[in-house]
């Protein structure tokens, strides 16, 4: 049995899902009794509640997948810190996914076009990622207008996802752009993409690291 925990904290409220062999049994974005959760930032209580609902113990979790952003600085770091520590505590792997893999995976299924994934950054800057056929092929940080034109050059038709969906459509009025309607990835979708590979994730001393404007995975 593979019991995978996915943690999606790129925005509020925090998202957590638990699934066995890829089937989602608990998804915190769906209605459940939250009376024992006085603080929405308390990830431990949220995961404990999920485990209680599906009748499993912490020690039965076999892998963790976590969203490393880009997203809210403090909230992404909260999820990543919790995931790394729980993985170390249980001696299980932690598998990092970018927010763009997550929203791209979800948006690509809608019309199978390249997906321009967008996220806010500090001081008016933006993160953009181009997702196509199962992978993020480019990722940039900078002024929205500048990096939008760089990443969409040569794209005749594409889908847009994330925080800057409207802005991108305004910036490129002559392009054929489909609005995915997706602001952030969902924990349930995260489980679908993470389950097949989560157990091949990092093991301490290797850990998940949140994305920031200095991350090596960003293109120049």
């Amino acid at each position, binding site marked *: 049995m593979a019991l995978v925990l996915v943690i999606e904290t790129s925005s509020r409220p925090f998202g957590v899902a638990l699934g066995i062999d890829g089937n989602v049994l608990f998804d915190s974005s769906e209605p459940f009794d939250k009376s024992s959760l*006085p*603080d929405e*930032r*308390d*990830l*431990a*209580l949220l*995961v*404990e509640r999920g485990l209680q609902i599906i009748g499993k113990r*912490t020690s039965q979790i076999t892998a963790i997948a976590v969203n490393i952003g880009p997203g809210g*600085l*403090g909230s992404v*770091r*909260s*999820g*990543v*810190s*919790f*995931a*790394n*520590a*729980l*993985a*170390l*505590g*249980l001696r299980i792997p932690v598998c990092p996914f970018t927010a763009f893999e997550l929203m791209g995976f979800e948006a690509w299924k809608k019309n199978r076009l390249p997906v321009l994934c967008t996220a806010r950054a*500090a001081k008016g800057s933006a993160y953009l990622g181009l997702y196509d056929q199962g992978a993020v092929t480019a990722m940039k940080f900078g002024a929205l207008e500048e990096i939008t034109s760089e990443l969409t050059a040569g794209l005749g038709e594409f889908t847009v996802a994330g925080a800057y969906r409207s802005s991108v459509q305004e910036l490129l009025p002559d392009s054929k752009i489909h609005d995915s309607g997706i602001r952030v990835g969902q924990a349930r979708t995260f489980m679908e993409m993470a389950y097949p590979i989560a157990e091949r994730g990092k093991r*301490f*001393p290797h*850990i998940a*690291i*949140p994305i*920031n404007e200095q991350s090596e995975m960003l293109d120049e």
Partner: protein
Amino acid sequence: MRNMESLVLGIESSCDDTAVAVVNAAGQVLTSVIATQTEIHAEYGGIYPEFASRAHVVAILPAIEQALSEANIAHGDLRAIGVTRGPGLIGSLLVGLHTAAGLGMGWGVPVIGINHLRGHLRSADLEQARVKYPAIILLVSGGHTFLAQMQDPGKITLLGSTRDDSVGEAYDKVGRMLGLGYPGGPVVDKMASQGSPTVAFPRPMLHDGLEFSFSGLKSAVSRYLAETEAPVLKDVAASFVEAIMDVLLTKCRRALLDWRSASLVVVGGVAASPQLRSQAAQLCREMDVELCLPPLRWSTDNAAMIALATWDYLHLEKYPRPVPELQLSISDY
């Protein structure tokens, strides 16, 4: 594995150092690991909160592994994990809190959110019981400045705190004005010891109860430097430090007169100041109370003090959740 449930793991990440320690119920420190970020922040002349938080993510689990290894213990030896929940920088606190929560969940060890200020107050009792109660506590650090009265480790009354800058902030800012770099405390004190207090800087709120204010003093130093041709920097430093000491010691004397006390406890990073240590000793001799100074390594932020405070919480059966609380006062658990 050592004695079952005999130890507490302390985690402190409220500011710019990632600290982890293992402490027993008697205050003995089995290990204390501090991953410092001084180099990261030095070029900014102060702490850059975003970089502090990033550095905590990278440093915290290796520091925990190192602490357990140095103490030669396993998680089964832990009675609890105590982690700073505030006050502090939110981005830094979140890393420590969620790390503690994840580890506690994975290990099956309870996690308690600790008030950082209570940790500082307990730092004087690390390794040996030094504090004689009732005590007056002066906490002077980069983030805090206040006087409190402690009837015992669990009963604390705030007497007065700063209305603006902390003493440590004033030191850091004046250090930057004098071109001495960061952190300002040790370098300003050192330069001050070579100069004479020739400049009559103000002593804010000197005659007003037990509250503090340091922003006016800092501004006065800035104005003096801007308006003076070729200022003698060592004399400026000496004058600044004299003004600081005058305020701190006057307030301590007032508190000792107002509250029957067996000791004066000086904690926090500024407690490392040689000027403060010697003048506090002189005051205590005059007032016939004992001076309690923690060893310098426990004066600045560390996790051993958080672990010792965790034992107080366990004894008093206080179990705050490990979620951030930025506005904690000294009287809060």
